[in-house]
């Protein structure tokens, strides 16, 4: 999600819970904001949310794992999301992916040992007009080539 990886130093879990407790159906909002605190949803965080909302932990876990943008394991400071949809595919996304893998030494689903970058696939980013495309946190990049993607990564 949008602000998933920019830590919000001022907010903490109980504030988030207080804000949403009264409005029904806000589990997704709570999970999103909770994830923003340190980039992922730990077991303890999920437990606490379940307790506070008075719903089974299995349900909270079920929701958190249904959506691909919720993380239950730690992620890097920057999440590179490379689009794997057809329009990007037919304009050479595989080559871009290969360059990223080579540059960072990680495969999709992995994080660099220094914790700086995670690499992930995403569905269409709506940037098909400038395919192949990717996002790094909230920033969008298009018309990618091997050279350009190397330059971009080095600029972080």
């Amino acid at each position, binding site marked *: 999600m949008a602000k998933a990886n920019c830590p919000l130093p001022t907010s903490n879990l109980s504030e988030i819970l207080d804000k949403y407790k009264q409005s029904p159906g806000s589990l997704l909002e709570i999970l999103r904001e909770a994830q923003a605190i340190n980039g992922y949803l730990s077991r303890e965080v999920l437990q606490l949310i379940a307790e506070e909302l008075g719903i089974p932990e299995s349900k909270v876990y079920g929701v958190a794992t249904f959506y691909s*943008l919720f993380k239950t394991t730690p992620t890097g400071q920057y999440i590179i999301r490379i689009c794997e949809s057809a*329009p990007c595919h037919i304009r050479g996304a595989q080559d871009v992916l290969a360059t990223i893998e080579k540059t960072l030494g990680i495969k999709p689903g992995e994080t660099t040992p220094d914790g700086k970058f995670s690499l992930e696939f995403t569905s269409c980013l709506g940037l098909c007009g400038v395919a192949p495309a990717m996002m790094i946190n909230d920033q969008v990049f298009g018309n990618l080539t091997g050279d350009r993607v190397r330059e971009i990564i080095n600029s972080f």
Partner: protein
Amino acid sequence: MNLYRAHVLICGGAGCLSSGCKAVLDKFNTELKAHNLQDEINVVETGCIGTCDLGPVMVVYPEGIFYQKVAPEDVTEIIEEHLIKGRYVTRLLYERPASGEQIPFYNEINFFRKQQRIALRNVGLINPEVIEEYIAQDGYLALGKVLSTYTPEQVIQVLKDSGLRGRGGAGFPTGLKWEFTKNAPGDQKYVICNADEGDPGAFMDRSVLEGDPHSVIEAMTIAGYAVGANQGYIYVRAEYPLAVQRLEDAIKKAHEFGMLGENIFGTGFSFDLEIRVGAGAFVCGEETALLASIEGKRGEPRPKPPFPASQGLWGKPTLINNVETFANIPVIINRGADWFKQIGTEKSKGTKVFALAGKVNNTGLVEVPMGTTLREVIFELGGGIPNHKRFKAAQTGGPSGGCLTEKDLDQPMDYESLVAAGSMMGSGGLIVMDEDNCMVDVARFFLEFTQDESCGKCTPCRVGTKRMLEILTKITQGKGEEKDLELLEELATSIKATALCGLGQSAPNPVLSTIRNFRDEYLAHIREKRCPAKVCRALLQYSISSELCKGCGLCARNCPENAISGEPKKPYTIDQEKCIKCGNCLDKCPFNAITLK
């Protein structure tokens, strides 16, 4: 208000953002100040102008000159040459792909000239963050008119008369849906805007949300009045952070202007909006899954009926429409059903926005009357296929649709004709493919997508698509058998008949349609173990051109199977028996000496 002698519209849509329009905009503002022109020339950051591949793009008025691929280094020249001396910067003008002829004027470029913009009327023209600009374009006029002079029944009648159908995929008549929701018993009702836009290759909703968010807010408020709802939700996918931000901003400003919230325009009608952000699940675009997601649950669809119009959000009657559907509505109210009805074809009224992606010269968004042919869209607006390649197919309807081929080029595109041609409208994504794309690979790719996005609730979709994917993968690896085609068709038919929601029911479509149109290509993979488009790596033979090879040995050092041998400074050779077709040598060779057959 200041009267400016020139306006510079710089596209701030996502496509141009990705190619660096922010730096151009900043440079423009500082350079204008440096030239002391800030009171004469107005710079506007607009939504998507449409030509994403040419970004960053800008239009300079009053002349209407279109500049493409503008870099910050070009800004001083544009100011000094164009804005001060009145001479266009010719090297930044648009060039017609086929002839290379330069076309300076925005409205003479086919891509723009052939469009009729209703849903996209303001996108690329106004600053989405300035509500006054929307109002100046007749924004909120329709809402005012409806609240002060129409009964809810009259609003619905206008929509029914207009013939507007849903732009989110199914093409259901919008007026009828509003009527069902209005007539459903219950005192609490909701209006929802489906802004999940999951179809790979479609980005029109994004463009409306980012470039003209007030049009959606206005239309949803009109809907609230017509169906009797006081609360609305906009469900936006998380992949669109800019859209979320623009919507939040627009909602806030609409509140400040008294066009949203309590007692709108002083008429006593109240309506409010909340944004709900998705979390990365394609199936949530399906309306019942979307409802579950707004309720904070796993986004799994449920069988219909009951339809959301009678039992929707928290069991209450709920109207769900797509972004583009909503964006049409204020104009229909302002200009009348009769005006709208004369655009388009007999059963498909109005315009449709198509997202051109893939192998086409002008990628981006075009809005054309329903019934425009595929040929016009791809070859006239889209400028044809790049690099003088041949058109092979266009996928419409995304992973739920099918492909159109050469024989369909002169088909008018509307809901019915597309279905008759074996595809569907879907949300209007148009992925163009040329001779270098392998249709078996494309079919496999789409299926992989739906398989991946299957929520797993029903067996036909969860297991059936997996079986199909295995077979397709086998074929692309050269292990296919002829009976596999029949098996694919059989599986496809039964999944279509038994899956729970539209995702599963339509998942086999790309496979069926490619088998129908490109049977020979499948057979080449199966019988001859050959990929005619040279895409499926396992079916290619790698060899080294003795003319181009300089004997550097890089390939041999990178071959994991030691299949390459030779002596330094002499051409190397590949042992076909050992080669596993990993493609390492191809990636590594500095002289392009590795050839594929």
